[in-house]
């Protein structure tokens, strides 16, 4: 199987998984205890509007017909309407998603570059004090609740030292512009610093530990010794050979880690008041705005599954032994 047909196969699997997710969400929201219509009908509607929606969604019809209508509406790009604001859910998502992506991507970049570097160092210098301290820091990053680290950061750097703004993506009075305009301002990046650092501190442990563990496996290999016999410098061995080989399992593990990222994202956005889909999910859940909650949850899952797909394809590019 060539690389192209493998990619196509994986893409097809992706679509199937997404479909499975959508189906699971459909059933989850409808077989839960309580009045099933509570998830579809906003409590704010009057009798006439309720009737309208009942017809549109076929709420009183058998489940399989509801399901068909549900899939149809999704394929039309209609994820429902917010109970709260009546905005289409897709609009809500499109408003908040870019903010989350900017945060997550920046934090991931910072966390993974630092984490992988430290992991290489820790794996290469086994049993040194440096290694032990690095591991300790990694484990601490994983042990502190992400929201608590956020609170600490705000307290120390925001309230106490006053270096950085404490909440939000923009200062009061400065909001209202679109993300693409804001992203070029210094103010925006000042607001980014604390959330990114907190998220990165939380993300960092995983790639660090995986990379270290991978390095330990590689370091004992015969080809590393042969490189020494060839006269290659220790530094070159560490990067060109050991790290290069150790990267492979790290890439796969990274994909799974992205799934964890969603959780941290939710907590950090909430504490910082960052207007992203994480915070929006929590708000929606608390105010019982099920269409929005459902839609955002779906987006999170889709991101996770997509990252798995990406990692799978990227791995093949790195490892010449992989045949499709």
């Amino acid at each position, binding site marked *: 199987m060539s690389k192209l047909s493998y990619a196509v196969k994986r893409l097809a699997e992706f679509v199937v998984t997404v479909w499975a*997710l959508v189906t699971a969400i459909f059933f989850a929201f409808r077989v839960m205890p309580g009045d099933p219509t509570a998830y579809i009908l906003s409590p704010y509607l009057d009798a006439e509007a309720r009737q309208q929606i009942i017809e549109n969604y076929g709420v009183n019809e058998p489940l399989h017909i509801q399901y068909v209508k549900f899939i149809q509406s999704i394929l039309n790009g209609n994820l429902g309407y917010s109970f709260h604001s009546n905005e289409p859910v897709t609009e809500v998502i499109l408003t908040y998603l870019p903010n989350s992506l900017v945060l997550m991507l920046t934090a991931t970049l910072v966390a993974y570059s630092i984490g992988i570097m430290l992991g290489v160092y820790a794996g290469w210098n086994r049993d040194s004090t440096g290694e032990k301290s690095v591991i300790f820091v990694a484990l*601490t990053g994983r042990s502190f609740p992400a929201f*608590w680290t956020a*609170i*600490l950061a705000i307290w120390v750097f925001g*309230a106490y030292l006053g270096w950085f703004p404490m909440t939000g993506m923009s200062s009061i009075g400065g909001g209202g512009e679109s993300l693409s305009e804001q992203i070029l301002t210094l103010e925006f990046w000042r607001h980014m610093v604390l959330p990114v650092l907190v998220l990165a501190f939380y993300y960092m442990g995983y790639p660090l530990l995986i990379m270290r563990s991978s390095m330990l496996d590689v370091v004992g290999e015969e080809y590393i010794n042969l490189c020494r016999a060839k006269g290659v410098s220790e530094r070159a061995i560490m990067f060109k050979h050991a790290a290069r080989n150790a990267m492979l399992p790290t890439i796969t593990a990274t994909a799974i880690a992205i799934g964890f990222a969603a*959780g941290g994202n939710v907590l950090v956005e909430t504490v910082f008041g960052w207007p992203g889909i994480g915070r929006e999910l929590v708000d929606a859940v608390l105010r019982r705005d099920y269409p929005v*909650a459902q839609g955002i949850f779906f987006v999170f899952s889709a991101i*996770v599954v997509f990252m*798995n797909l990406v990692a799978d394809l990227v791995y093949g590019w790195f490892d010449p032994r992989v045949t499709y």
Partner: protein
Amino acid sequence: MSSIFQELEDDSPGEQDVGSEVRRSSWRRYASMGRDQLRVLSQDTLFNVAATILLFFTTLAVVGPLIAPHRPQERLYQENGVLIDQWAEPAFMSSESTHLLGTTAQGYDIFSQLIYATRPALIVGFLAAVLTVSVGTSVGLIAGYYGGTVDQILMRIVDFAYGLPLLPTVIVFVAIIGPSFENIVLGIVLLQWRGSARVIRSQVLSLRERPFVKAAKITGASDLRIIVRHIAPNVLSLSFLYASFAIGWAILTEAGVSFLGLGDPNRVSWGTMLQSARAYSAVAEGAWWWFIPPGICISLVVLSGFLIGRAYEEIVQPELRMN
């Protein structure tokens, strides 16, 4: 495998009786294996520190309510008996205060809350870990041993479970079913079993081909017997490893869910304490004695769990031990 793991092989291939005799000798083997492992572990300083911390908190969870000065949601009044003793500073900061860690905005004693909160934290942690790993190990054993369609189906379910992000799922789950610690545990277990399932399954796949398993099959041992007596003991260590990490993840998840306001409204956990602190803007008020201690407790317990897990990991992979 090193000697710590005596490969639990069947020495008497002709055994007919599956019952109590087998179970007794299996337990004895587990016990001796456990003792050996404990002996090696206790040589690691970090493990000892972590175990001590965990033991301390466990004791606190048990005897806590007996030694706490107040009940966690007991509204306390100032000396005059009229005004609620809100925002009181800790005793070491202000000579007037009788509260070790001060009080909350609602007049509850923080120190007492901290102690009372230990119980739900540890119960959620241990319960979720045990359930997660039990489900995961069982699934892994069945999928790995039987293979074929059973394996395919189970692994598809695992893949699906991996597609769902943990915290958002628990949040939505708890929001729908109702906020309580039991439901939080349920929500966590619903997804967390996926990790151990995958790992145990690959271990079983390799064990299945080992000579001692094939020998047992030839002598006519039933599937159940082979799984229980030959394969399970060899994956047990992996299960324990996962359990120790699962405790940490479970406690963090509960704290996160409670923090967001979806925790049990009638009970106090470290997460709900932090939620309350945030709701009353403790940071702005500078009441660090309110929002620092619960976080420290969570971090200590979780870190201890991870350190124990790491120490255990070092002996489960014996080749890492040798210099």
